[in-house]
């Protein structure tokens, strides 16, 4: 694929994450079909992350204004897919999210081997160490995020149960005419 065409494709693509494992391509397609024509869907495989990460996908639309519409609606209103209340999240796709990219024309790669005698060697080693540090930090951050998400979910589960109980009680009271009797007692309708 030509680079220009690829850039255009990126503009037409929406990156959606926070997807539940129940969301399949069909589900996603049906959901996004409301916004326009879905040209293709690719789920980004999760090779390196923890295996309970939500899914994320690249949804290519026919036109970039459709992509913008998806992002705008999903940013303004929480959009539920295959469950609730955790909404999915949409943002504009970036080139690095795609795995089959064409080469940027005019780019050249330069390589250089350093042996231990090289003055820069120490620094390079330090940089390597830094890289590994950063990877570890990212992993910790991700874990923390997942824990926060779990806690929120638990909290919401409790809130939902309480709310449901409340409505059940209300229903029950209205159903068995306790409310009616009370109303009569207080001479209110």
């Amino acid at each position, binding site marked *: 694929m030509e680079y220009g065409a690829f850039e255009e494709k990126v503009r037409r693509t929406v990156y959606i*994450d*926070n997807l539940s494992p*129940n969301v*399949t391509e*069909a*589900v996603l397609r*049906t959901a996004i079909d*409301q916004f326009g024509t879905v040209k293709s869907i690719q789920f*980004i495989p*999760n*090779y*390196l992350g923890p*295996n*309970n990460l939500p899914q*994320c996908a690249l949804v290519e639309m026919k036109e970039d204004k459709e992509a913008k519409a998806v992002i705008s609606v999903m940013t303004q209103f*929480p959009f*539920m*897919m*295959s*469950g609730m*209340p*955790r909404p999915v999240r949409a*943002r504009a796709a970036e*080139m*690095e*999210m795609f*795995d089959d*990219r064409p*080469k*940027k024309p005019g780019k050249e*790669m330069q*390589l250089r*081997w*350093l042996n*231990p005698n*090289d*003055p*820069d060697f120490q*620094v*390079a*080693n*330090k*940089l*390597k160490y830094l*890289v*590994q540090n*950063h*990877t570890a*930090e*990212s992993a910790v*951050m*991700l874990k923390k*995020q*997942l824990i*926060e998400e779990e806690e*929120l*979910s638990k909290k919401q589960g409790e*809130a*939902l*149960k309480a709310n449901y109980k409340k409505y059940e009680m209300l229903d029950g009271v209205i159903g068995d005419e306790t409310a009616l009797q009370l109303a009569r007692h207080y001479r209110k309708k």
Partner: protein
Amino acid sequence: MSHLEKESRSREENPQFKWGILKALGQNNKNVKFYESFTYDGVEYFLYDCVYFNIQGSPETSIGKIVKIYENSTSEKRVKVVWFLRPTEIRNHLGDYVPCWNELFLASGEGVGLSSLVLLKFIAGKCNVVCASHDHRNPQASKAAIRMADYIFHCTFDVGKLAILETFPDNIDGVKVEYFFNRRIDQKPISAPNPKAKVDRTAISGLSSKSGVNKVIGTTIKKESTKDAVNVSELKHPPDKSISLKLKASSHDNGTGTARSSQCLDKLEAKVCKDSSTRATNVHPYKKRKFIMDEESDSESDKEAAQLAEDKAIKTKGQLMKVTSSLDANRGNWFHKLPWEQRLQTAQESGTLLLLENLDPSFISAEVQDLVRDALKMRVEAKMVQQTAFSSPYYGKALVILQSKKEVELAISKLEENCLMLANGRPIVASKVEIEKPNKQAGFVGHLLLDKFRVQRQNQERKKAVSTSHCSQPNTFEYDLAMEWCMLQEKSDLWWKALYEEQAKEIEVSKQLKMISTIS
């Protein structure tokens, strides 16, 4: 799809059908053709045969007598059928009457449930119904015949008066009553000898037992009533959902109720049929296409669904093919053409998988392969790891499949002992890595289900495969919870941003050190 599969598929969808003798043309509309017989799915049916029908929403088949066979101007093949009612269907009106175990009641009179126009495809086989009435117009059946019959009937049930009558009227729905009694020997031959009927019956009972559970058969049964034809379509609801609509006279007291709920179902039907058809195609493009065919109620939408299903199947297949070929182009065709996922898996198992980090994120897979080829003199297969919302914008990673474990060890040691630097002072870091397998069993954090509905919902979702996508409305509790999630998502975005900014700073600092060291 291969031609063979296409053929067998069309055979499933269009069981062998052949018209028999043409009887007449329609008086008003010459395009309507009336016939005396037809062959469907290997069985020949004649006018005035008794036939089983598969009606969705009913665990049992329905039995009726064919009084008209026609094909209308839109090429729809239908039969007009006068129903035989089962005792259960009129149990409210039986009164003192105690029916036999295999007794039916012939519908008569005027009203809902007398007869219907049914599409041919809902025919499930022939039924041997013998009239045991002592009406003088009825040729008496022998004891043997009565014993061998699938069903018998003595009386008629007037659907207008809602009462069992022992005397038969002169005609039923415009057809002379003689046609409903047993056939005289000098009349047209009885439809099928008993053994054949029995065979059909066992086949049908097998079918009908499945139909209660799994079989997807949509129906459009246009009822002839004095009001507008009620178009009732039943969905695949589990029986305890209690939207089972009985089309016969039994639910007369719920007459208006059925009409209303059928309208609701019509609205649901369009959505669910579409959803389930798309979902079903995704899972099994070949096997379940038949289900999709049966689910739609009109032949036109049948064709559309078939086209849609085919398109989708081709699309998904097309996607797969595209991936392999592009990789081939890069690699020069010397790896066997398994999909990348599989190659990754085998590489991990055989220990030939390598992770390269600290690459420029704008690298593409081909560049990584070239890089390794030039620097390490190894032919490899590489793929850049796709970035997601919380990938570091500064680091690119790639998964590399080498030829052997030894090569992996070699690469790692080489890259460790000496530093391979990229353009802007990035040393490449290599390490062994384990690929995560997606854990589909893990529930999704953040999706809540009330315990009560959990089991039901899961079953329904598995069966119906409905996608419940929607925007949350501000006046719901769901909205409040969703907002909490949005907040958490925003917060986490900020964390990641802060982290990566920190990391960028650290990298800068280290690089500065480097510059200092080169100067000194």
